[in-house]
């Protein structure tokens, strides 16, 4: 069976990627805007998705806006911002029912594209600016969102580790921005900023569903033909190569019951590199699965944790290890984790681990092709990296990876920062 095939075309300077698939009962539309990840823009970019979802010229109140979505058979509209290396990406997604599975329904694709275009291009305006009340309310919500990061200790610890490790690099910025920027943002300067985003940022449109490329192109052309004329900039990103001169240990105290241990490593490897498949294998053998070294040794053998795993920030060349442990077990856990990294460096990898990781990693990648969002993200990765790596090819490359190549990768990966979130008080001061 063939994996997702996207047909990529241009409307002016906007890229459009369409995948015709009969297996979904809905159609997914997605738009991505790339922006530089930089202190002077990060909060404005982060604020845009929620302001744009408050109202359009045709449905100017938020109630009428939400009811419009209800009427489109509960179409889901979603806006967010995330980081891909040193790029800040603004994402809008819409998922809408395919009328062939409904009784008496109108042509929903055309209505969906029309509505999405209104959200992006015809926001409700007041004196040539966004509506001030909406901007102020969303500033407050964004502030709340930033403050609530600490509510989820797993996410909080993961961000704080990155912030410490990447201090001085744009990647240290939080994807939802900074509270201190909010006071300076108003309806006017945010609108001016958005006009700039619309006319200079690289834009990619995606559509996945039981649709034809031609109908999607025609509908998009009609709505976005004008804005597509503007030339787009190229977003510059820093190279991932980043030798570690000294390991760093950061301890933070908070009112918590469980300690959160996060360890950041520099992989010196990016998605474009030829040895990227070996990095995927390295991460898989170390901590991607329940058969991996971290799960087996930290959880199953030592009973120290419920979870202990690793994951990659592929576009930034980072590998992140995370675990939740009893606070007094900090040293033991760090030692076991160090030992696993050392074992990989020494090539202590069983044939069985290699085989299992190839099988489960391939399964994970193939499974993504059953979810429209993940199909799109997989493809968008190649747009961002400029490196075409169709799934068939990546699967074959993974299959070819040998133990020596994983070991070579292990030699490149350097431990950079150990971060530990622990309780207040307590005499047993955690040390590295």
């Amino acid at each position: 069976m063939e994996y997702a095939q996207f047909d990529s075309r241009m409307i002016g300077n906007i890229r459009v990627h369409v995948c015709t698939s009969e297996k979904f009962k809905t159609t997914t539309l997605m738009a991505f805007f790339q922006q530089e990840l930089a202190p002077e823009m990060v909060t404005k970019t982060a604020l845009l998705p929620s302001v744009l979802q408050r109202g359009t010229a045709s449905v100017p109140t938020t109630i009428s806006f939400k009811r419009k979505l209800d009427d489109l058979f509960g179409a889901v509209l979603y806006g967010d911002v995330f980081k891909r290396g040193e790029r800040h990406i603004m994402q809008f997604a819409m998922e809408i029912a395919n009328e062939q599975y409904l009784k008496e329904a109108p042509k929903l694709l055309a209505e969906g594209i029309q509505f999405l275009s209104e959200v992006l291009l015809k926001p409700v305006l007041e004196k040539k600016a966004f509506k001030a009340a909406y901007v102020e309310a969303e500033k407050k919500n964004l502030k709340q969102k930033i403050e609530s990061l600490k509510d989820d200790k797993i996410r909080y610890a993961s961000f704080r580790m990155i912030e410490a490790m990447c201090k001085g690099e744009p990647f240290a910025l939080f994807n939802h921005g900074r509270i201190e920027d909010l006071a300076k943002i108003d309806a006017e300067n945010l609108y001016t900023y958005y006009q700039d985003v619309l006319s200079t940022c690289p834009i990619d449109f995606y559509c996945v569903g039981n649709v034809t490329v031609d109908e999607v192109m025609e509908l998009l052309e009609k709505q976005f033909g004008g804005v597509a004329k503007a030339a787009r900039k190229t977003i510059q990103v820093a190279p991932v190569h980043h030798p570690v001169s000294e390991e760093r240990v950061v301890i933070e105290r908070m009112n918590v019951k469980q300690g959160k241990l996060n360890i950041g490593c520099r992989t010196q490897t990016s998605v474009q590199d030829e040895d990227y498949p070996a990095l995927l294998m390295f991460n898989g053998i170390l901590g991607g699965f329940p058969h991996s070294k971290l799960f087996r040794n930290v959880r199953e053998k030592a009973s120290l944790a419920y979870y202990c795993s690793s994951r990659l920030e592929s576009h930034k060349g980072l590998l992140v290890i995370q675990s939740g442990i009893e606070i007094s077990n900090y040293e033991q856990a760090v030692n076991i984790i160090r030992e696993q990294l050392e074992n990989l460096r020494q090539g202590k990898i069983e044939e069985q681990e290699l085989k299992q990781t190839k099988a489960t990693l391939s399964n994970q990648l193939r499974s993504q092709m059953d979810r429209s969002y993940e199909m799109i993200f997989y493809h968008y990765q190649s747009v961002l990296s400029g490196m075409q790596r169709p799934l068939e090819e990546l699967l074959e490359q993974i299959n070819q990876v040998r133990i020596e190549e994983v070991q070579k990768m292990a030699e490149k990966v350097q431990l950079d920062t150990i971060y530990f979130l622990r309780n207040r008080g307590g005499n047993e001061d955690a040390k590295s």
Partner: protein
Amino acid sequence: MQKVDFDQVQESLYFEELPNGLSVYVLPKKGFFKTYATFTTKYGSIDNGFQVPGKEKHQVPDGIAHFLEHKMFEQSSGEDVFQEFSRQGASANAFTSFTRTAYLFSCTGQVEQNLTTLLDFVQSPYFTEQNVEKEKGIIGQEIRMYDDNPDWRVYFGLFEAMYQQHPVRIDIAGTTESIAEITRDLLYTCYETFYHPGNMVLFVVGPVDPAQIINLVRENQAGKSFPVQTEIKRFFPDEPEQAGDKLKEIEVSVGISKCMFGFKETKNRVHVTGDELLKQEMATQIVLDALLGSSSELYQSLYDDGLIDDSFGVSYTLDRGFGLSMMGGDTEDPDRLLERIKQELPRLIERGLDPDTFERIRKKKIGANLRYLNSPEWIANQFTGYRFNDADLFNLVPVLESLSLDDVNRRMREHMRWERFAVSIVRPAKD
């Protein structure tokens, strides 16, 4: 093997009940790469008091169903079964809820081997005193993780505030103290009571040939012997009609308060099954969405006043012997939020839903159902949950279509009674 077609959504479901009592369902998904299978027992954290004929009555420690789920992965060979699934390219997992324990895998190849592994490991328990002790450290950390999770604490707090006796008020994982009491023998007792094929459902969804799957399962099961299934008696304490404490408040290290509130279901509507259950669920969900969903006037006015943000949501739960509506999310001022709810909700309940709102929300729910059908995980888990209550997932849309405005307004007034109202709040602890 029986087959049922659902023309509107273009799906077909295959079914067979095996001689040992196991129910097997297969839903072929053309064009998908992944096969997802769940093997589920009608046994969850609430089933802590039980008896089978001729045996003594048991009251078991809190958290034992979940503990048992963890221990099933251990095998007599000494290797945990994750290793085998990994060799076969599958991703395996399990979960325990109030009413179910499910074992599952997903894979994009070697479906038959993985299915055999799933059936075999769940049907061959291996508990030793030693491996039971070892697990207490791991589950202890799982409990701690939830202790630090304010979303779980506020969610669970609402059950505690509403229910006074029913075991749904007990945390699924138990406590460090309660799991200390778990022994190998107790695990075997629970296993033998609840893991009989007659108490279980297998659901397979993916690009598979139904006949081939059902043949494989039939042969696998024919090769194993089970005692004759006897009736399991489950004991539940008498639960008063009204909400218990009505308010559960705790302090956790958070940036912003969290507040959830809702109504406990009336006593005589918590044992409904079949289409009646679907109807009650759909009608209540429509009510909640209409009153406090993101397209309601009240939601928007609370949002404009800065009392809620987009984390605010509504939901309804109804399962064996308990039910409740839940509304809430992050809020800067839980007290003012509740004041507004108590002020404005009675008027809205009094007025009832209007026909336009009702139609709009119904339409939205029909569309959402279609979206969910893209997810093999959702289909398998929802189908099994309903099946244990003698209801059929694929009747959802027909039931939705048959609902009338009258049904929904009647449901609203039956469910939303202030003597059954309760609140759970997590406030920021001073760090």
